[in-house]
C-alpha cells in the first residue's frame, strides 16, 4: 500500500549504489585506532624484521657455509606480517558482532551480500597496498647489507614479484580471516582459528608420513599462499608461487561461499 504522505524520499529515491556501501566500509575501517595500530605494526615488523635479519646474516649468506638463499631473507618479515593481516581481517568483521553494531549495519544495508563484498574489497585494497609497501621498505632497507657482501638482489623477476606478492598474500589472509569472522562471529575465536590454521596446523601436517602429509603440507593455506610472497622459499617442497596462490584463492573462495550462505540464512 502507498502512504498518503507526501514524503518523496523513500518511494522515489533510488537504492544507494554499491559505491556508497564501499565508502561506508572505508569510513568504518579508517575511523578506529586499532586499524592504524595494526597497519603500522605490519609495516614496522614486516619491514623491520627483514632489515634486521639481512643485517645480521649478510656475511653468513655470502659465505661458503650458507645453506639458505639471500632471496629467502629479503622477505623474512613476511613470515610475521600475516599475524597482523589476521588481526585486521578479524576486527573488521567481529567487532561488529561483538558490539551488536552488525544490526545497525544490516538495517542500513539490508542486502547483506553487499556488506560482505564491500568489507572484503576494502580489506583487499588496504592490505594489498600495505603489504606491498612493507615488502618494498624491507627490500630498500635490507638490500644494502646484502650488496655490501656482494650478494645484492635486483628488483626484478622473482624479487619484484615477491613485493606485490606480499601484498597479494596479506590481502588474501585478511579476506580469509574476514570470511571466518562472518562464520564464527567472535573475535578471539576467529583469530585463534586462523592463526592455528596458518602457523600450527600448516606445520603439523608435515608429521603425517608419506605422500598424504606431503600433499596436505602443500595445500594448507599458509603454505600454498606464502610462496608468492618470497623470491626463494625457506621450504623447498612448496608448490610453485602462482600455482600455490591459485590453491589459496580456491580455499578463500570456499570459505567465502560458506560465509555468504550463512550470512543469508542466519538472524543477525
Amino acid at each position, binding site marked *: 500500500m502507498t502512504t498518503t504522505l507526501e*514524503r518523496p524520499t523513500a518511494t522515489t*529515491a533510488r537504492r544507494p549504489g554499491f559505491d556508497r556501501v564501499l565508502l561506508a566500509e572505508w569510513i568504518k575501517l579508517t575511523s578506529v585506532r586499532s586499524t592504524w595500530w595494526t597497519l603500522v605494526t605490519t609495516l614496522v615488523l614486516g619491514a623491520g624484521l627483514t632489515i634486521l635479519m639481512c643485517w645480521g646474516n649478510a656475511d653468513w649468506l655470502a659465505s661458503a657455509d650458507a645453506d639458505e638463499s639471500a632471496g629467502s631473507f629479503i622477505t623474512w618479515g613476511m613470515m610475521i606480517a600475516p599475524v597482523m593481516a589476521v588481526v585486521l581481517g578479524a576486527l573488521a568483521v567481529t567487532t561488529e558482532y561483538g558490539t551488536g553494531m552488525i*544490526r545497525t549495519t544490516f*538495517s*542500513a544495508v539490508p542486502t547483506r551480500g553487499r556488506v560482505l563484498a564491500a568489507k572484503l574489497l576494502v580489506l583487499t585494497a588496504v592490505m594489498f597496498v600495505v603489504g606491498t609497501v612493507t615488502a618494498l621498505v624491507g627490500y630498500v632497507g635490507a638490500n644494502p647489507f646484502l650488496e655490501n657482501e656482494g650478494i645484492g638482489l635486483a628488483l626484478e623477476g622473482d624479487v619484484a614479484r615477491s613485493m606485490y606478492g606480499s601484498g597479494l598474500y596479506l590481502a588474501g589472509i585478511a579476506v580469509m580471516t574476514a570470511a571466518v569472522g562472518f562464520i564464527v562471529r567472535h573475535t578471539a575465536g576467529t583469530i585463534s582459528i586462523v592463526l592455528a590454521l596458518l602457523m600450527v596446523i600448516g606445520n603439523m601436517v608435515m608429521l603425517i608420513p608419506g605422500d598424504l602429509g606431503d600433499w596436505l603440507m602443500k595445500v594448507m593455506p599458509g603454505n600454498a599462499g606464502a610462496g608468492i610472497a618470497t623470491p626463494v622459499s625457506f621450504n623447498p617442497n612448496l608448490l610453485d608461487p602462482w600455482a600455490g596462490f591459485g590453491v589459496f584463492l580456491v580455499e578463500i573462495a570456499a570459505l567465502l561461499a560458506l560465509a555468504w550462505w550463512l550470512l543469508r540464512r542466519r538472524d543477525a
Partner: protein
Amino acid sequence: MIRAQGLTKRFADTTAVDGIDFTVEPGRVTGFLGPNGAGKSTTMRMILGLDAPTRGTVTVNGHRYVDSPAPLREIGALLDAHALHPGRSARDHLRWLAASNGIPTTRVGEVLDIVGLDAVGGRRVGKFSLGMGQRLGIAAALLGDPEVVVLDEPVNGLDPEGIRWVRSLARQLADEGRTVFVSSHLMSEMSLMADHLLVIGRGRILADCSMQDFMTDHAASYVRVQAPDTTKIEALLVDHGADVTRRGAELQVQGIDAPAVGELAAAHALVLHELTLVRSSLEDAFMALTADSVEYHAKSATEVAA
C-alpha cells in the same frame, strides 16, 4: 505504516512471537508495551529484516524492509543504543551510516545538533554515558529523515530532562505525519507518550486500542470505605446493588459512587472513617493484563527470550 500478519518467531524451544497481527499507523505515536521477554525486540528485529520470521510477514510501507529502495530514509531505528564500536567517534559513526545510504554528510551535524551531542561529536563513544549513547542512537534513527521511526526502549538510561525530550520528540515526529513505534516495559511512560497502544505478552497481542480506550477499559476504580462497623454498611450497600469486596478492615465498593455511599451511611446514622475514590493506576491495569506472561517468566528460570 508497518503491518504484521500472522507474524511468528520461534527459537529453539520458545515461541518469542506467536502469530501476531497489527498495524502501526502514521501520524500517531504507537506504544509497544510488554514485560521484558514479551517479544517486543524480536518483533522490531523482524520489522527491520534482521530476524527472519518463522511464519507470517511484516511489511513497511507495503513491502518487506529488505526490498526497501532507500532503507534509512524509510525507517530510522534505535534497537540497542550500546551496539557501537567504543573506539569510534559519534560523528564517524553517523558518517559511515550516512555514507551507506547516500545521505549528505551535512545531515550528520544536523542530527547531532537535534539530539544535543554537537559538542561531543568528536569524542569516542566508549566514553559516553548511558544517556549520551541513547541520544546518539536516536540521532542515527533520525539521520535519513525517515517516514517510519522505530525506537526500542528509548528512555532507558536517560535523565528526567532526556525522558521529557524523547516524549516531545516522539510527539513532534508523529505530528509531522510520520509513523512512530516506541517500545517500553513501563506503562507510566507509555501513558505519557503514546496515542495508541499495542500490548504484548508472551508473544501475543493482548490489547490493540487507543490509549484513551485502554484507560477506560482497564483502569478500574472503586470506593474505599473504612468504618467502626463495616458489617452493617456492607449489608446496606449490597442491598442497594453495590459490589462489595472485603479486604482486611476496609471495604472496596464498586457499582455505586462515593457520594451515594456517604448519603446512604448518613441516612442510616452509620459512622464512616474513610470514604475515598481509588483509581487503580494504568500500571496496575497493565500488570493485571500481563499477569500471565509475567507469572510464566517468574516460574520458568531457564526462559531467556529476547
